Every structure is written in structure tokens, then in C-alpha cells.
């Protein structure tokens, strides 16, 4: 009936219902609402799709891709039903994950309870190592010590291992050593290394992210695997894409590696949906793209382009030399070679003025672009 690969499927799973939308390249739309299959959510998707195919007379092969937003990761965190995770961290800092930042979100609340840490203290192992703030190794990690820590966690039958050492963003060597040990000792075990997940300063935030990634890894991986199997079984070879917290899409294999990126897929989908809604309500696409999306996206570009433009205008000596173009860079070098100090001085003043002017221009453009900046 139709050519291969011109249908796209959107699937959103909630606790009660699973919604499926089948969208043809020509704009034909089919929807289906089925009860969610708690336990193996993929079942409902496959079942719903089969029903849709039955109703429309289409075959699985017409589907180009399946786009999917899921709460499986956020639910696991909220309900504390994620994996049994073991954490390896630096000696002396076993409780960074639990101490958090000390601050509580409410004042005067005697009944405040801290959220329970995702890794209990007895599953947090320390290794005797130390990297300083500049990434220099002060105390080398003894591989035996690392093996002991990993063995202890494996003996506790952990389902995933998270590794976050102090200052590892500056030098990941010790973390990678532990990674290699985990891979060797438990080749099938899921693991999450802070340097690979979030190589940024601030130990609590990095540890927390690394642990969350490990915490939802097994659940998300098996969820995606079950889904793929189900789709294959139903004769749907289409690729599976997942909604990310940043509003973009990622492949199912990438999502299984970095499930932390799909935790907020629901709210992110909402933003994308709002765009679609604005379009449907008659706001021209150009306006959405130029007025809302690109305008926000242009901010970092402008802050980079200001100084960069100055650098291009003043520093393009080589290009000018090779192509024999008359330019200010070449002018400057010739002036220097001829010891024409007045010229050099003049060009330098021009350079400085240009840089100041372009930075200023960037600031002005910033004010125009960013709705948060108000001029008074």
C-alpha cells in the first residue's frame, strides 16, 4: 500500500495508559490508547502497534522510526526501585553522597527528612589514593587496594558500580584503573565512571550524577532490550529513538549507556510539544525558530563571536600573506619589519579599538536577544 519507511511512531508511556501516535509522511494520523503493561512496558507498545496495523492494514516495515519518551528512569529514582549500586570513592570521603550540601530546602521545619542516599553506607567503598586540585597524583592508587574495593562490592552482589574519586575531573587515571578492574572482574556488570559521565568540578554533584546513572542503568537497559526484542518479534525493524532531558533525541544504545540523560524526558517533551502546539495554533514556523528557539540559542554564539570576530580581523596575517590580500595583519607585520613605530602604534590602537568595539557590540546584541535582560 505505501512505500517503505514513511511512517513515524511516537510513544509515550504513563503509569496507566500508553499512547501511540502513527504519523504518515503525507500527514495521515492514527492514534491508539491502550492500558500500560506494568512490569514489561514494551508489551503494551507492541500490542498497541499490532492493533493499529490491524486497523489500518499497514505492516511493520512502513515505520521509519519510533520516538519514545519514558518515565521508567525517573520512576525508579522516585520509588527507590533502581539497581543495588556500589560506590567506590576516595578514602576520607565516603559520605559525600549522604552529607550532600548540608542545606535543606525549607526553614524552621523540624520534620524535614533528608532523602535516603541511593547507595547505603556499607555499599560505599573507599580506596587510598589522592589527586590534587591540579590533577597531580599525590598518592598513587595501589591496584590491590582497588581490587579489594571492587571485590567487596561484588561480594555484596551489587548490580552496578559507580566510581567517583576526588579531583578526578582533573586527572581520571585512578578512575580508569578501577574501571579496567571492574571490566576484568565482572565483564557483564554495569558501571558508571564520573570522568566519563560528568567531568566537572564539585564532588557532591559529580558523585550524585554518577550514582544516579548507575542506579537506573540496569533498569533502563533491560527495558530498552525488552522493547527492541518485542519490536523485532512484531516485525518492526525501525530504529528506536529516545527523548532526552535536553529535548533532543538519542539512540536506544546510547540511552542505555547514559540513562541519566533521559530522566527528565517527560518535561522536555512538553517543551518540544509546546513548540508544536504554537505551530498548530498558527504561529509561523519562522517566528518560532527565529523568534524563540534560535534567539535563545544565539546567546552563547554571540558571546563567542564578538571576540572571535576581532581575532579574525586582526590576526589573519597568514591568509593575507598567502593570498596576497591587503589586510590589517599584514600591514602590521610589515610595519614591524620596517621599524615603522608610528605605524605599529597606530595599528595597535586600531586593534584595541576594534576589540573594545566588538565586545561592546556583543553586549548590546545580548541585550536585544535575551528577554531576561532589561534596559532601564
Amino acid at each position: 500500500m505505501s512505500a517503505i519507511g514513511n511512517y513515524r511512531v511516537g510513544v509515550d508511556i504513563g503509569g496507566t495508559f500508553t499512547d501511540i501516535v502513527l504519523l504518515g509522511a503525507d500527514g495521515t494520523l492514527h492514534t491508539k490508547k491502550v492500558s500500560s503493561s506494568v512490569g514489561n512496558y514494551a508489551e503494551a507498545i507492541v500490542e498497541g502497534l499490532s492493533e493499529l496495523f490491524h486497523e489500518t492494514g499497514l505492516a511493520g516495515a512502513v515505520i521509519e522510526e519510533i520516538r519514545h519518551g519514558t518515565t521508567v528512569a525517573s520512576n525508579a529514582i522516585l520509588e527507590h526501585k533502581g539497581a543495588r549500586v556500589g560506590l567506590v570513592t576516595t578514602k576520607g570521603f565516603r559520605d559525600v553522597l549522604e552529607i550532600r550540601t548540608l542545606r535543606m530546602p525549607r526553614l524552621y521545619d523540624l520534620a524535614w527528612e533528608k532523602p535516603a542516599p541511593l547507595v547505603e553506607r556499607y555499599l560505599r567503598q573507599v580506596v587510598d589514593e589522592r589527586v590534587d586540585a591540579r590533577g597531580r597524583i599525590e598518592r598513587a592508587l595501589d591496584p590491590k587496594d582497588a581490587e579489594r574495593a571492587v571485590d567487596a562490592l561484588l561480594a555484596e552482589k551489587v548490580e552496578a558500580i559507580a566510581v567517583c574519586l576526588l579531583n578526578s575531573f582533573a586527572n581520571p587515571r585512578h578512575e580508569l584503573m578501577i574501571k579496567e578492574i571492574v571490566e576484568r572482574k565482572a565483564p557483564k556488570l554495569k558501571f558508571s565512571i564520573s570522568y566519563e559521565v560528568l567531568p566537572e568540578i564539585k564532588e557532591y554533584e559529580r558523585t550524585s550524577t554518577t550514582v544516579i546513572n548507575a542506579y537506573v542503568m540496569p533498569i533502563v537497559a533491560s527495558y530498552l532490550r525488552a522493547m527492541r526484542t518485542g519490536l523485532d518479534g512484531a516485525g518492526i525493524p525501525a530504529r528506536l529513538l529516545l527523548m532526552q532531558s535536553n529535548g533532543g533525541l538519542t539512540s536506544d544504545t546510547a540511552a542505555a549507556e547514559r540513562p541519566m540523560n533521559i530522566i527528565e524526558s517527560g518535561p522536555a517533551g512538553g517543551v518540544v510539544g509546546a513548540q508544536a502546539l504554537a505551530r498548530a495554533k498558527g504561529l509561523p514556523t519562522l517566528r518560532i525558530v527565529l523568534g524563540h528557539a534560535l534567539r535563545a540559542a544565539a546567546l552563547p554564539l554571540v558571546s563567542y563571536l564578538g571576540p572571535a570576530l576581532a581575532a579574525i580581523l586582526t590576526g589573519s596575517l597568514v591568509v593575507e600573506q598567502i593570498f596576497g590580500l591587503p589586510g590589517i595583519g599584514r600591514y602590521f607585520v610589515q610595519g614591524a619589519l620596517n621599524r615603522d613605530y608610528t605605524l605599529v602604534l597606530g595599528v595597535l590602537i586600531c586593534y584595541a579599538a576594534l576589540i573594545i568595539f566588538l565586545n561592546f557590540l556583543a553586549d548590546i546584541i545580548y541585550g536585544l536577544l535575551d528577554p531576561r535582560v532589561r534596559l532601564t
Partner: protein
Amino acid sequence: MQPCARLAVDSFAGRGQALQHVGMPVSHESPKDPIAFELFKNAIFSIADEMALTVFRTTYSGVLKDNMDYSTGFADSDGKLVAQGLTLPGHLGSVPTAMDSIMRHYGNDMAPGDVFIMNDPFDGGMHLPDIFVFKPLYHGDRRMAFACTVCHHTDVGGRVAGSNASDSTEIYAEGLRIAPLKLYEAGKLNKTIMTFIEKNVRIPVKVFGDLRAQLAACHIAEQQFAELVAKHGPDETAAFMRETVDYAERLTRSALANLPDGEWSFEDWIDDDGVDYGKPIRLFVTIRKTGDHMVVDWTGTNPQVKGAINNTLSFTKAASYCGIRSVLPPGIPNNEGVFRAIEVICPPGTVGNGVLPAACAARGLTGFRMVDCMFGALAMMLPDKVKAAGDGGNTGISIGGYDAERKPFIYVDFTCGAWGARPWSDGLDGNSHMMANMASHSIEVTEAEEPIQLLAYEFVADKAGAGKYRGGVPFRRDYRFLEEEGTLQVRSDRRDFRPFGLYGGSPGAPSENYLNPQAENKILPGKFTMIVKKGDIFRHVLAGAGGWGDPLERDPAAVLKDVRNELLSPAKALADYGVFVDTAKWSVDAVATAKRREEIRRARGWTETPKVQRHDPPGLASGTVKAAE
């Protein structure tokens, strides 16, 4: 409707002098439109919060950025607090006192574009590092409100870097005293004041950066307030601001009316002031409650001391409010209305109300402990609503000096984290004291910016007070000093007087300070200032928090969990709780536990459960731990 009706009857009596002395007519009129009022109330608190965020985003120093030791607020045209964007409960009560001082000095001698600055504890301030910046906000020529900010600055001069030393003995050693002055006069900066500040502080870059953050917050407030006035008109805005205060008063009074009437007292001690070592300082509070009015009376508190832990009255008020607010329902706005219903008394010349020349830089300690003392008194009043003593409030650690190029550095850290146990659950492990909801510095950021390395930041086992619900587990922090030479100044407490337990709960373990724990392990006092050299390690262990309820009633599964998590040793589980933990199978021997608990119960011989425990109960002393091992 009942609370409102009662309010109409006794509001003159209850509102006290605060209103009468400024001669403001007391209005009983509710605004016509409750929805518009609700929107206005949220708007004005949002402005206060946005001011707080502005400081957070623009500050230069770690103590503001990471510890968040600052507050922002909004006062009406007479300087009465309408909204406080609270980041720190310890600052509630500070703005009214400071505003009073401004009004006393300047009254109507102000104009659009003026900005006031001050920090003098004896003229409306708290302690010298807390610099207040106020800006009157105008609509045309009519003064409508004040934007208020108070920030703890990295340094305001004085004899010790950080201006926090607990062992100064008079205010003159503590730094630059700024009386209420106009930093800007009709929009023109007073360079003389700026120069005086610049020449008297160690790190003017940070101090000026933070002052600018305060000015920016005032500026934001001015802009947004102008929008609010444009929307509502000046008269309605003023009426709404008045109503915001009245609303808070009504809520506070109706909540107070639900508490039992009567009088309750509690006492506690601070180890010493860091100057007269070993001389305890008594804190004594009496709470008197009748109807919808409460009096917090600190008469009986120790006379002011030589060391720098004397409170100003404003800080004593903040501590009193903090205690009471914790047992009142949430959602009461922080403003003048609360203060009208709660009267705080503290005689001048005591540690709770120091007079010239009292040193007060480290007065935070006294404030924290007054909150704990309030909790003690409130626990007598409401046995099932209040927690036992926590670690005693934050320990202040300042490390300062000069690097090889004579560039100064100052590292200021405030840390606390063990909550007392509550009648329904264990004390929190690693959570700030109620009085100062401060965040901790990131270790990695500290190491990247300061000549300090942290070697440990972790829980310490066997320190929490036992109880049906145990106290919070304290942590230790080990600091290694990396510059050639520097000054280390520490303010800690709860060494001699341990955090008390309530209704059968045991007290927590005392705090500890050590120099070079890996080598000589020299024991340091609770409060001191000393020179440190490169490589020296300072270790601070917080005090453990007090427990609540009889430890023998603690669920053995909870004891097992603590043993499993290495927060409690098996020996101490047996000694304090009578619980036999099998560490091979991670299970509890129920029969042996029941037998052991009966033995302890008999040996202890309680005829009634002690309400407050400051020492280990007999039979639970550490000696028994050794016997069990």
C-alpha cells in the same frame, strides 16, 4: 473567623510599643480584594527572594556564594519589616533593629538615591562582618519602602583574618566599625567611606565585590518595586504592605493560641568564652505563654563575657523566633507581624545583649545555643514536638595569611551537621542547624581556590547520642594547610557540656580538635587562634547529637542498620541499646537482646524517665563498652 474577632479585641495591647512609638494608625480594615492581596503578598516576597538570588549570583566570596550567610528583606516606609527573603533564620530580627537605628539617625533626612551602610553592633548591627546596606525606595517624592540586605563579609579588618576570632576581648580589636552612614547621597558615592573601608580590610576586592552584590540586590528591588507601585498605585501598595504584616500577626497569634498556656524554663551552658578557659557560661530561658501572646525571657543568662561571643539583642531575638517558629505551622510570613506576637526580653549587659565594649565577632555560637536552649524549654512545653540538642551549631574555622608574593588569602568555613533526635525519628546526619541553613563549600572548589587541602569529610561512628531515636551522626573534617605560614582560628564548643538528650535519650559525644592527627595528635582546645605551618593538619570532629527516648525501646532493626553501616560499633550497640548483632549473618539475636535489655533496665533503676540527660546514664557509660568487648 474566631482568631480575627479576638485580634480586634486585643490588638492594641498585643501589638506593643513597636507600632505606638512610630505613631502609625492601627488599621483593622482588610483589603477589599483578597485575591489581589494574595498576589501582592507573593509578589513582594518574590522580590525579597530575587534580591537573595541576585546576591547569590553576583557575590565574590565563598562565604556568601557557598555558605549563603546573608539575607535580604523589604521594609515599609517606616522601616518595619514586611518581607524577608530568608536564607538564614539567624538574620530574622536583625533587619528591624538595624532599620530602627537608621530611622533614629536619619528620620526624614533622606532622599531618592540615598544608600545607607552600617555594621556597628551597638548601633543596630550584629557583628562587624555583617554589613547592612539599605536603600529607601521612592515613588515621586514619597518614601514607600526600604530594600534591605545584610551580608557576612570575608573580612572587615581587626586582629585576626576573617574578623571572626572568638578570643578578642573588646570590639575595638575586631575590625572596622561603621556607624549608620550614607554610602550614596542622592545617587553620589561617598568616596571617603569607601576609602576608609578599602584601607581597613584585608581583601578589599572581595569586600567591594560583595558590597556591589548588595547594591545590585537593592537595585533589583527598586526596579521591581516600581513595577508593583505602577500596577497598584502608591496608596494601595502601602495598604497591602500593612496588611501583609497584619496577616502574619493574625496567623502567629492564632497559632500561639493553640499552644498550652503556662511557664517553662530551661538552662544550658557554653563551655567557656575562649579567654577565661574552663569558666562555663549559663544560658537560661523562661517561656511564658498566655492566650495568643508569648514572652521569651532570658533573664538569668550569664553576664557578658570577655570573649567575642556576646550577642546583640537582635540576634537573641532571632534565636528566640527561630525556636518558636519551628513549632508553629509553616507559611507564616517573616515580618514585623510575627514580632508583635512574640516579645523577647534580655537584660543589657548579658551574653544575650552585650553592651560596649563587648566583643561579639563569634557571637553566632551563642545564638545557636540559644536556639537549642529554646528547644529544651519548648520540649518541656510540647514533649512530642521538639528535638534534642544537635551538635551545637556551626564550628567556625578561619585560615588566613599571606602567600610568597604577600598576597593575602582567607578561608572561612562554617560547618555543622548533626541534628538532635526527634520524638518521631532519628536526628538528621549532615544537615545544617536550624538557625543557619548554610550550605557547605565544595571540597574541590576549596582546593582549587585556597591553599587548603581537605583530607577527610566523613561520618564518625559511636558519637551519636543513644535513644529510641538516636541523635544525628557527626562528621569530621581534616584540613591540611599548604602555604608557608598562616593563622588558624577556631570557634567550637560542646566539649565540656555535651548535647543533651531528651526523655530518656543519652547525650551526644563531645566535640574534638586535633593538630596533626597522623603524627603527634595534639589535643587542641575548643576555641583558639594559632600559627600553622606548611603541611600542618587540623582535624575537627563535631559533637554528636542528643538522642530522644529510652534507647532500650529502639527497634533492633534500626540498631542493626547502623552497625551494618559502620555508624555504630557492635560493642556500643550492646552497651547502649542491649542489642546483640551477629556481624557474620547481619542479624539480631532476639533472645539475647531481650535478656540483655532487661539487665540494663534493672541496673539502671529508673523510677521515671529522665526528661533531660547531659551525662551518660549509669550502666551505659563507656566503661561498659569495654566490658562488653
